[in-house]
């Protein structure tokens, strides 16, 4: 842990509001990306990401400096996602129902970033294909079981190391790897079925 991070944590523990704003700005994008990919709905994700930071503010005293602050925040985010799944399941919510907004959104302001995903595939109509792939992937992720979803988003979307994923999920590396492999195979099969 860097000196700067340690100082930031001290200030957070003293309930320094400027430090808190600084911390939110530093981690909001990662937290939002993670919960958005886990929940598949922007509104839900924005709401949940805010709750994650409220929990960080409330429980910063409990943060043991054994891991990086970002790892601890991810951990809180994953727990929040799991609780939200349960809540949404009780309300009979289907994440995939909200994926239509991906298309509407992308049709306007998001052609630029869609090209990034497009660079990865070799279809002729690259942008359209990229949007379809994003929707298909998001739908397929939503169909995975919760434990598989966590590891695949952390590893393959967010690009975290196995060490970080183990710290976030409290799982042994072997468990993470076998769960991840099953998740990847399941995702591949779902995408193949769609095509």
């Amino acid at each position, binding site marked *: 842990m860097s000196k700067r991070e340690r100082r930031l944590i001290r200030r957070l523990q003293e*309930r320094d*509001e400027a430090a*808190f*704003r600084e911390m*939110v*700005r530093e981690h*909001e*994008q990662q937290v*939002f*990306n993670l919960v*958005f*990919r886990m929940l598949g709905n*922007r509104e839900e994700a*924005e709401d949940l*990401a*805010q*709750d994650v*930071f*409220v929990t960080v*503010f409330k429980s910063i005293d409990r943060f043991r400096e054994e891991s990086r602050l970002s790892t601890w925040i991810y951990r809180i985010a994953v727990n929040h996602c799991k609780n939200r799944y349960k809540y949404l399941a009780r309300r009979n919510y289907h994440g995939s129902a909200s994926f239509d907004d991906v298309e509407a*959104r992308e049709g306007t302001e*998001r052609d630029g*970033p*869609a090209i*990034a*995903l497009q*660079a*990865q*595939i070799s279809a002729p109509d690259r942008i359209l294909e*990229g949007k379809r*792939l*994003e929707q298909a*992937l*998001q739908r397929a992720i939503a169909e995975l079981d919760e434990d598989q979803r966590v590891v*695949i988003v952390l590893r*393959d*979307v*967010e*690009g975290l190391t196995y060490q970080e994923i183990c710290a976030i999920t409290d799982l042994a590396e072997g468990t993470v*790897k076998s769960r*991840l*492999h099953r998740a*990847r*195979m399941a*995702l*591949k099969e779902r*995408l*193949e079925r769609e095509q």
Partner: protein
Amino acid sequence: MTERNRPVGDREDRMDHQQAKDKFSDYYEDSLDMQQRAAIEAHFGSCSECRAEYEAFKETLRGLSGLHQLAQPIELSKKVARRIHRRSAGRFFGDRAETRFSFEWLSLVVILILLVVVFVVTTSEKRVITPLLPPVSADAGVSSVDGSSTDDLLRHDDQ
């Protein structure tokens, strides 16, 4: 033939379809040892089904890493501050918190201006008053020690 110099691709080293599929992730992440890597590559060489399936596997993973680049920009700090303010019944992140810095500086500036004004007024008054005072200034000295103000002196002179 010993275990050590048995050539790769020998019967016992061959993978069946399921064994090959089980190794897709390790092969993708390049975490297989040389022997296993050679075995899976040998299987791909002879099995178009697994080769095609591995291509689809790789495409899926490339697509997933592409999702990261599609991140939508987000700005949460103000919303989070408002949420904490509400849930803490106003204890944290009140409106003043945001303006405290400028309020403190403003107060300091106002105090400094007042001090300067008081200083300027009192010194200019003295300058005007001095020639009007009686030649013996001891009275003034005494009166100022016992707390008489310049106003008293001025009133005294007016009479």
